[in-house]
C-alpha cells in the first residue's frame, strides 16, 4: 500500500493503545461522519458560509490525523487555514482533490481494518 496515504506507524500505535477491535469500529464511524463533512464543505462553499467551511475542514483534519491519513489531513488543513477563497473555482478544484484523496484514504483504512 502507498505509505503516503496512511502513515502505518500512526495507525499501529492507535491499535496498540486502544485495541484493534475498537479501532475497526472507529474507522467505520469516521467513514460515516466524513462523507457528511465533505457534503458540508461543498454546501458551505456554495452558500459562502466561511465559518461552516472552516469548521468542517477542521474536523476532517483532526480525524485524518487520528488515523494517520497524512495527505488527507494536509489538504484539509490547507482549507482550514486559508478559509473560503475569493475565487470559488479554486475552492471547487481543491475540494475535488480532497475528495479523491478521501476515496484513497477510505479504501486504505478499510483494508487496514480487515488486515
Amino acid at each position: 500500500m502507498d505509505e503516503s496515504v496512511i502513515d502505518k506507524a500512526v495507525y499501529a500505535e492507535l491499535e496498540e493503545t486502544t485495541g484493534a477491535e475498537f479501532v475497526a469500529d472507529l474507522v467505520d464511524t469516521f467513514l460515516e461522519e466524513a462523507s457528511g463533512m465533505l457534503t458540508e464543505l461543498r454546501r458551505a462553499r456554495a452558500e459562502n458560509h466561511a465559518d461552516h467551511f472552516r469548521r468542517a475542514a477542521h474536523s476532517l483534519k483532526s480525524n485524518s490525523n487520528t488515523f494517520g491519513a497524512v495527505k488527507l489531513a494536509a489538504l484539509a488543513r490547507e482549507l482550514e487555514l486559508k478559509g473560503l477563497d475569493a475565487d470559488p473555482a479554486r475552492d471547487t478544484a481543491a475540494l475535488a482533490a480532497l475528495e479523491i484523496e478521501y476515496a484513497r484514504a477510505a479504501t486504505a483504512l478499510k483494508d487496514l481494518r480487515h488486515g
Partner: protein
Amino acid sequence: MADPAARLLIVDDNKVNRLLLSRNVQMQGHSAALAENGRVALDMLRREPFDLLLLDIEMPEMDGFAVLEQLKADPQLRDLPVIVTSSLEGLDNIVRCIGLGAEDYLHKPVNPVLLKARIGASLEKKRLRDQQKELVRRFATSEVAQDLQQSGFTLGGKRVHASVMFSDIRSFTALVESQPPEETIELLNTYYTLMFDAISSHGGVVNQMIGDGLMALFGAPLPLHDCASSAVAAALEMIELIEQFNLERSAAQKPTIRIGIGIATGEVVAGYTGTQQRATYTCIGDTVNLAARLEAHTKVAGCGILIDEDTQRALGDGVGTEALGAVPFKGKSTAVEIFAVAAGQTA
C-alpha cells in the same frame, strides 16, 4: 501508579474524537460522560458532579472559550479542572485558554500517555484543593469559609454593627483537677457541641475557643437582623441545654457545671488579623472588651447572663431583665449600666 477512578465529562462536536477520548479515559480506569457541544456540557455540569472536564474548542452552538468563561463566572463550577483538547493551531488560542482558567492544553490527536499524565496531575491538584477547602471548613466557620470563597482573603477589617458573646464554664480549674483528663476532654466536646448548636441555630458564629471559654459573633461576617435579640435567645438556650446536660451528669454521679455569659452590642471592627501566612477572623473594639468584662462579672453578680445597655434596649418585651445599676469596669472611663437576663439557672 493507578489513580482512583474519577468521573470525567468529554465535550467534543466530533463523534470520532468523543469515542476515542472516552476509550482512552476508560482504559485509564475512569468513567466518562459525553456531550456534543458547550451548551449541553454546561447543562450536564450543573446537574451532576464531575471531577474533570475534557474540552474541545471548535464547536457549534457554544464553543470552548464560552464554556471556560461561564465556568469561571460560576462559583459552583469555577474550581472544576479543565483540560483543553483541540487541534486549533496558534499559540494565541492556547494562551487564551490558559488565561480563561484551563489547567492544561493538549493537541489532537491526543497522545494517550500524555493524556494520562495530565489527567493524573489535574485530579491530584483537585484533591489537594478539595482537601484545603475541607480544612478551611473544619477550622473556620462555614460563614467565614463562604466569605473567604466569595471575597478572597485580605487582612484588614471593616466596621459592622454586631453583638459579641463571651461564655465560659465556672470553676473549671477545680473541675479539671477532680477528674481524669480524658473525662475533661469528653466534657469539653459535649459542652462545645451543645454551645455551637445553640449559637448557630440563632445565626451566631463561634470564632474562638480558648480552653473552656468561647467567643461568638452575631452580625459578622454576615449581617444579621436584630443581632442583640438573637444573641440573648442563644444565651437562654445555652443555659437551658446546660441544665439538661446537668440532669444527665447528676444521674451519672458526676459534678454538674455552670456557665457565665456576657453580651455587648455595638460597633466592632471585624476582619482577618494576623499575617499573610496565618490569620484568623475576629472582631475587636470596645464592644468586644465589654462583653468579656460582662462575662467575668457574672461571677461577682451571681447570675448566668449579663448584658449591656445597648443589648437590653434592643430586646423586646418578651425577655425579662433586671437592671443591676452602673458598674465601673477596668478600662472604662465611666461606669456601665448592666442588666441580668432572667434565666432558669441559679447562681
